[in-house]
């Protein structure tokens, strides 16, 4: 139990096959409490499978996984009490308004004052004005923000974000990053999967690369960089990147995201 105090997620020898395809071939991983951990991998590497096993949506074929000290195989209800999952596609109810979506989740988490919780989160994610509109009318970034807001209800100690910025425009992406940083600052453990290297670089305290069903490296950004030969010093004219240009041109809203 002592280990569980400092370790939010502990995965040992995790295996999973779909029919004849071995997706996970013995994954070992530890995520310490309050950190942001990025699981990096190309499409089909098995990132989503790991997340689905950790959130009790899928059973592993072998190995063990503990979340917040609870075994995902035998203590599913306790695990679900400890986590929230934001899947690859913004899982919001399009027919309900943003506010109703938040109230729905608050009620399902058996919290009192669902209305107050909803209003606070709308405020925090700059959705107050849009709160009375159907979520189906939201832009991609707004849906994602609502999705993440829904995940925070009840302050679960562990949050899974499965490719939280896939399909988002650069502006929305920065908004999501900001939300993730705030989460971790509040002590929440975040496990995020991504295929964007810069996303891992920007957000994560530790990064693991999942490749062909195994973790091939695991460390801080600095440690990972040391795996390659030291950088050669070259003199190049500093050109603004396309991202810089785009963000400068589209204006002030992104400023908040950079801070």
């Amino acid at each position, binding site marked *: 139990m002592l280990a569980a105090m400092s370790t939010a997620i502990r995965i040992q020898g995790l295996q999973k096959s779909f029919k004849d395809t071995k997706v996970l071939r013995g994954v070992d991983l530890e995520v310490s409490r309050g950190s942001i951990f990025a699981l990096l991998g190309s499409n089909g590497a098995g990132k989503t499978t790991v997340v689905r096993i950790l*959130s009790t949506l899928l059973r592993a074929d072998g190995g063990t996984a503990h979340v917040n000290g609870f075994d995902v195989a035998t203590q599913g209800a306790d695990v*679900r009490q400890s986590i929230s999952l934001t*899947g*690859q596609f913004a*899982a919001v109810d399009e027919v309900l308004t943003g506010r109703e979506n938040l109230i*729905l989740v608050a009620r*399902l988490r*058996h919290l009192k004052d669902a209305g107050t919780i909803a209003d606070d989160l709308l405020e925090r994610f700059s959705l107050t004005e849009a709160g009375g509109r159907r979520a189906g009318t939201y832009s991609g970034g707004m849906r994602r923000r609502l999705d993440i807001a*829904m995940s925070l209800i009840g302050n679960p100690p562990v949050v899974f974000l499965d490719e939280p910025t896939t399909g988002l425009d650069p502006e929305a992406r920065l908004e999501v990053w900001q939300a993730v940083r705030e989460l971790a600052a509040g002590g929440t453990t975040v496990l995020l999967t991504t295929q964007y290297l810069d996303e891992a670089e920007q957000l994560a305290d530790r990064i693991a690369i999942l490749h062909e069903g195994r973790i091939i490296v695991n460390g801080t950004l600095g440690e990972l960089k040391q795996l390659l030969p030291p950088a050669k010093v070259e003199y190049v004219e500093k050109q603004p990147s396309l991202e810089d240009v785009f963000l400068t041109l589209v204006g002030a809203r992104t400023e908040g995201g950079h801070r």
Partner: protein
Amino acid sequence: MNRHFLGDTAVLLGRSLRHIARSPDTIITTAVTPIAMMLLFVYVLGGAIQTGSGRYVNYLLPGILIITIASGISYTAYRLFLDLQGGIFERFQSMPIARAAVLWAHVLTSMVANLISVAVVVLVGVAMGFRTGASVLDWLAVAGILVLFTLALTWLAVIPGLTATSVDGASAFAYPLIFLPFISSAFVPTASMPGPVRAFADNQPVTSIVNTIRNLFAGQPVGTGIWTALAWCAGILVLALLFSARTYRRRTA
């Protein structure tokens, strides 16, 4: 059973009912086809159909109600499929709720939506001349059979809702159910059918259910037919429950 089962079901039921209130077209669509059929059979074909004494609409209405329910339950499969596809199903599954509540909310929503559709069809039937001498008790019996029938078919609809890979697949299973009343006593007495067809029609569930409801409406004794009807409904319900529970467990484990 999870201590939150009732509360969670109520919350999720509220969600689904809100969906229906915001797109009432699902109830209207459900009621339109049976009403069109009723108009066609009463005013175009009915004159040539011999059903004994009494108005043809009185003979026809019970079968039309069965068709209404058979087409209405396909929306349960449809709504369940959309939840699965949109990812909100997984969100619910990863939350600390009673997992069965997710299905029960859809099933109860189906009950509410179908009973509204049935009420609309009955009202149109009355406008077309349907009359009944049924007592309150007879009405309660009719309602009970229809509720049981809806419940059984809804649980049946949960299976394609959980397993379908496309929207069309999710609702296509209802077509044979809508077709079944045509080979029953719903539109014409089975006595007019050739031997093998009649044998099928006499022994399939729709005939016993339709005959029972017709007798209840007419104030006639229902005989043992009501037990056959109830046995069919209960049998379908138990099988559908077992299969959908198994599908659900496989889906979520």
